[in-house]
């Protein structure tokens, strides 16, 4: 099986290790991974801010970059949701691009989704002794309807004790430019999220979107809290050497 990795701009620049871990996990299942170098960003920052012309420019680039890929895997529920939900609509007046957008949408998978639904992974061979909780990012759980998938994967990791996160459906306050534009509201949201994380007693917060994790992690750090923040792929890869 061959897939292309869509790293996402955030992971590319800030969290390359997440990308490396995704590659490592996929390869451990015999998947051949490539990385089309012409990929940039899915365009979501522009799209969500209303700059749809600019978002289309990014989208075209991404569509072109993955034109020859049989499948695309990305470690971000949010970017996958951007491609799947908004790309076709973004090109509603350009039939040719719309068709290509739908094609990309149909072959793009979020990381956990790919593992559970395409690879049908049932027996993760990982051991990660930790007390953890999971953050359901909005675009992944609502946008893509993926809630059980990462939980299912993490449930197979040996010695990983998962706690339910209270108010797990509530947004962490990231929201892209929202976090900067309305930072005072965002602050209250992320603080509430952190309060809920703390009630679980978890030492590790696991998620599937580096945007949320950058927000929560950045606030945790600012507050001097010790909770470690990790992507699902990091847990699976780090726990892989059992």
């Amino acid at each position, binding site marked *: 099986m061959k897939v292309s990795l869509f790293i996402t*701009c955030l992971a590319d*620049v800030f969290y390359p290790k997440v990308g490396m871990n995704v590659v490592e996990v996929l390869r451990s299942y015999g998947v051949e991974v490539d990385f089309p*170098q012409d990929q940039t960003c899915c365009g979501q920052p522009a799209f969500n801010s209303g*700059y*749809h012309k600019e978002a289309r*420019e990014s989208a075209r680039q991404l569509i072109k970059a993955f034109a020859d890929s049989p499948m695309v895997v990305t470690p971000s529920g949010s970017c996958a949701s951007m491609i799947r939900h908004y790309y076709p609509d973004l090109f509603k007046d350009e039939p040719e691009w719309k068709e290509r957008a739908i094609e990309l949408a149909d072959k793009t998978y979020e990381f956990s989704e790919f593992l559970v639904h395409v690879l049908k992974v049932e027996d993760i061979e990982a051991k990660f002794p930790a007390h953890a909780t999971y953050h359901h990012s909005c675009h992944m759980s609502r*946008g893509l309807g993926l809630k059980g998938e990462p939980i299912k994967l993490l449930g197979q990791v040996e010695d990983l004790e998962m706690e339910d996160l209270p108010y797990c459906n*509530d947004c962490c306050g990231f929201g892209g430019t929202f976090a900067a534009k309305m930072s*005072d509201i965002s602050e209250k949201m992320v603080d509430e999220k952190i309060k809920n994380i703390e009630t679980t007693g978890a030492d590790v917060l696991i998620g599937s979107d580096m945007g949320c994790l950058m927000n929560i992690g950045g606030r945790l750090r600012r507050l001097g809290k010790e909770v470690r923040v990790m992507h699902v792929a990091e847990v699976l890869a780090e726990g892989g050497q059992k």
Partner: protein
Amino acid sequence: MSAHPLIFNERVDKALADPILKKALPLTQDRLRGGRINAAEQLGNVEEWRELASQIRSHTIANLDSYLEELVTNVRKNGGHVHFAATSDDAVEIITGIAKEKNAKSVVKSKSMVSEEVHINKHLEDMGIKVVESDLGEYIIQLANETPSHLIAPAIHKTREQVREMFSKVAGRQLSDETTELTAFAREKLRQEFLQADIGISGCNFAVAESGSVVLVSNEGNARLTTTVPKVHIAMMGMERIVPTWNELDMVVSMLTRSATGQKISVYVTGINSPRQSEDSDGPEEFHLVILDNGRSNILGTAYQEALNCIRCGACLNVCPVYRHIGGHAYGGVYSGPIGAVLTPLLGGYEEWLELPYASSLCGACSEACPVKIPLHDLLIEHRKDEVEMGLTPFSEKMAFKGFGFATSHPSVYETAVKLAHSGMGFLAKDGVISKGPGMLGGWTDVRDLPQPAKQSFREWWKKEGKGRNQ
């Protein structure tokens, strides 16, 4: 829309600093959203209900002229009076005109958001007419001289201590802060008002076209009193609040109460079909229906048309994490929460309501909760798009996204930018962390740390070592 003294940011700051809101909002939200979730679980197939409710609303709005015509024909046939109000001023003129003609001294009102839209209380009071809100929550905020902060729980920002103080003042004696004592006082006090009132003004949850009926949904019974005791009843309705027949009413009422509080049905659902009939000895002698446009028709035929499907259940407020922290008043308009952020700029224009579409993290909780499936967060993006296209966004932002569009569509430029990110932001970083950034970054770093871009980006790693390792 209201002329509000504070700009958006100031209203938000004020709300965020309010200790009462901080306590009351999550409490109310949790109760109401919990109720809705339970109700949905009881149904089991809530998605099918939402789908049908949405179809019904969309069909009705798409044929609004026909159903309104049918409605008013039937209202007249039943002996009621119909008034079309294109603007808020028209509505005021109509209602004050009726009050003048009836020589009214006092008016009781049951909850009506439309009446808030046209500030009818103020206009009636200016004529020397006493206006009393009878919904307990509305009565509380009327005494406090405030506006509702929630669609269905208008006084959630008031504590029992505050209520006790206000009620005690009216009563002329000290009341305890027991809920039962406070409500008993309100019952007694408002009952007197009802028995004296010349006119009752109600809202309209739904009008039924086929029979010319106005249907009111309430738990307290004040809507029944308003529409039964005074000699004249005026119902104020937003022009979109209509269903074709009683059969469709079933679906929208079932969704309204379940989504609002989680009740399978409200305590009272009251169908007002005509003024009193010849054999009756209660009920108003006159019935007036005021149908208000006030900017709604401008939404028809646009990307926002679905916003008119709203049945004002408040579910989107109850799940909104932004509303949870800033409450209703910070939005500044009559309607708050996600639906307020969508609707207010449509009714009042971007000039005054530029920031509202940005008061959302686009988490989509609202769209998921909405019983008539309005894609609320998508409509907020639509607003932002319109603001961009109308050139209303700041120059620096425009430039930034122009650059973004260019870089992301030119891989070599993008790659260079990625490569430079680490060192480029190096001057801001300390131990790999940026805690104070300039410009937009400042908003981020005011609240949280930002990691310094990695020394080696993923794409560089791939080129150097990642590529060759496929087994």
